[in-house]
């Protein structure tokens, strides 16, 4: 039984969960290969218990204070997407942000590998249409423009949940689109020690992937553990 594990959501949604507005939330952390820093895929605006939005800079600062590395990026309106892309330089990613969008990829609110400012701007514009076609109640107004990260060695699911019996918990497992099919996660009570986090990262399917499964490069376990610790630390700091 994998009851209660909601489908993947962006960091955007995860932040809301940490801040107490939702019970379930998970997000993916893309763990770097050995030796490289641990980048995190996706960071969005943070919402507080009050309902007031934090801006992206604040969100990042909060996570950075807990040691988490996130891709550089900015949250902007539709007309500012090109400028934001130009500011970042190189390949970028554009994500449409909206309350109702739990799954950006599925909703068509995700564009990866955009080479020029113009391409970013076009993608954002198209996104407004695509998303609206599927759900006319959604009108995209905010976009996260982010530096495109190299393809991750290994996507890891890192989830924070507030359980009625156990309080704040941390869930770790294989991430990516196949997560539900592999369906192997470990839940720890927060706060959790680094040992327990490392144990969860090296167990079962995730552990085999982390070691470098079938000739793939190995994951950087220490970097991964630090990223998870940072997220957990942030959650604990925000939690009651």
């Amino acid at each position, binding site marked *: *039984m994998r009851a209660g594990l909601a489908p993947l959501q962006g960091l955007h949604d995860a932040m809301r969960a940490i801040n107490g507005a939702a019970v379930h939330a998970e997000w993916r952390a893309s763990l770097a290969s050995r030796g490289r820093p641990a980048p995190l895929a996706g960071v969005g605006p943070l919402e507080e218990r009050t309902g007031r939005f934090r801006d992206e800079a604040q969100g990042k600062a909060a996570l950075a204070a807990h040691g988490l590395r996130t891709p550089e990026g900015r949250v902007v309106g539709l007309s500012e997407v090109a400028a934001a892309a130009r500011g970042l330089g190189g390949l970028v990613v554009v994500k449409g942000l909206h309350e109702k969008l739990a799954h950006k990829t599925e909703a068509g609110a995700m564009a990866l590998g955009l080479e020029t400012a113009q391409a970013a701007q076009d993608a954002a514009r198209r996104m407004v249409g695509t998303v609206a076609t599927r759900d006319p109640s959604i009108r995209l107004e905010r976009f996260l423009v982010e530096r495109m990260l190299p393809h991750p060695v290994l996507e890891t699911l890192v989830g924070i949940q507030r359980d009625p019996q156990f309080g704040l918990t941390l869930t770790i497992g294989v991430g990516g689109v196949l997560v539900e099919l592999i369906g192997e996660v470990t839940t720890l*009570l927060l706060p959790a020690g680094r040992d327990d986090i490392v144990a969860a990262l090296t167990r079962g399917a995730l552990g085999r992937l982390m070691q470098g499964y079938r000739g793939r490069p190995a994951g950087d376990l220490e970097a991964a553990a630090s990223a998870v610790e940072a997220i957990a630390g942030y959650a604990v700091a925000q*939690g009651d």
Partner: protein
Amino acid sequence: FEAHTQRYRPNQDEILKAMNRIFHPKAVAVIGASNETGKIGNSVMKNLINGGYKGQIVPVHPKADEIMGIKAYKSIKDYQGEVDVAVFAVPAHLCVAAMDEVGQKGVPGAVMIPSGFAETDNQPLQDELLAMARKHNVRIMGPNIYGFYYTPENLCATFCTAFDVKGKAALSSQSGGVGMSIIGFARSTKMGVSAIVGLGNKSDLDEDDLLTFFEQDPNTQAIAMHCEDLKDGRSFAEVASRVSKKKPVIMLKAGRTAYGARAAASHTGALAGNDKIYDDVLKAAGVIRAPSLRSMLEFARGLQVLPTPKGENVVIITGAGGSGVLLSDACFDNGLTLMKMPEDLDAAFRKFIPPFGAAGNPVDITGGEPPKTYQNTIRLGLEDDRIHSLILGYWHTIVTPPMVFAQLVGEVVEEFRAKGIDKPVVASLVGDVQVEEACQYLYDRGVVAYPYTTETPVEVLGAKYKWARAAGLLGKK
């Protein structure tokens, strides 16, 4: 990081102080004691008396001067001495007022048999009861329970029948039905019990409080709990992590599945919760999950008699090759390690068995062998200190009848225990009905033995190993 519901949670010392008075009472009051046969207040009195409780029994009744020959009191406050626990047998609507008196008397614990509280949707009355108890610092067991047994004090503070098979397993249940299975199973199998406790609605006392008591109770060596929800998962995890280092803690978590969770919600309002989280948290806390009611009972029965293994090397010695295969499957299923037989040991075993008997592990002594062959091979298994546990596969023959086998195993195991060598030994006996008696004989002597099954003895051994590993007694696997 607190869980949703805020529960009363005194510190461990305070819990222990109250629990020790409840389980070792100098005086037990019965609120609603009755002379009328068939009434619960009458059954409780009978069980206290017939169970052999040696302390003072204090019947409380509005009119009677005597209940079952014991001086009765109009109010508990009229009794002069100290009372340690009050068993309630009056209807729900009378309980709050009675609790006030019990509290004023300074009784630290109340056993609330009455139903008519949260389980009948009367949560407000339960809240009132709890508030009154908290006001006087009375800890509540229940309400809506069968009561509790504590055999070291010959204490049967329950309306069920008196019970006296003393032993080392403490069991608790959230539901009365499961409690009745514990009692019936224990009596039928002669399972040794230190305590059986009903937790019912768990308005106050719950699993973590019991763990705190059983942890330091010298009469308890294994703890088994049935529960539908943990009212405070975090406290439980914290206490269980500590207790499981010392004694096996077994849990049957009901409401594991979607169907079960729904039934639990409508039965007791229990929020059965996300089973995956339970599973991970219980594992991390070193708690052994029983997959079924029967296995909870068998684990409680078996784990208390088995010594703790000193290592992972398990050897099967079998008269029935077919049992050897099934026992091997069961070892695999239960995460046990069949020792890779060292050459010298293999040769030593081979000396005792027919040339076509398979050595290796299982050691297949073949079916037609006399008692001596069982004796020699089991002795070798206990002697060699590279072997840490034995699984025996007995096959009923005329040459070695069931009771002959049971007696020889009992003797050999006893002989080695006297020498300070005490390894877990479990056995599967296949054969005609006489194997049932042989199994009971073996169980009584600390050998976990079952008829007509190859799985159960190995499952019990597997549970012992799971515990020993989680408690850090075996090193890393």
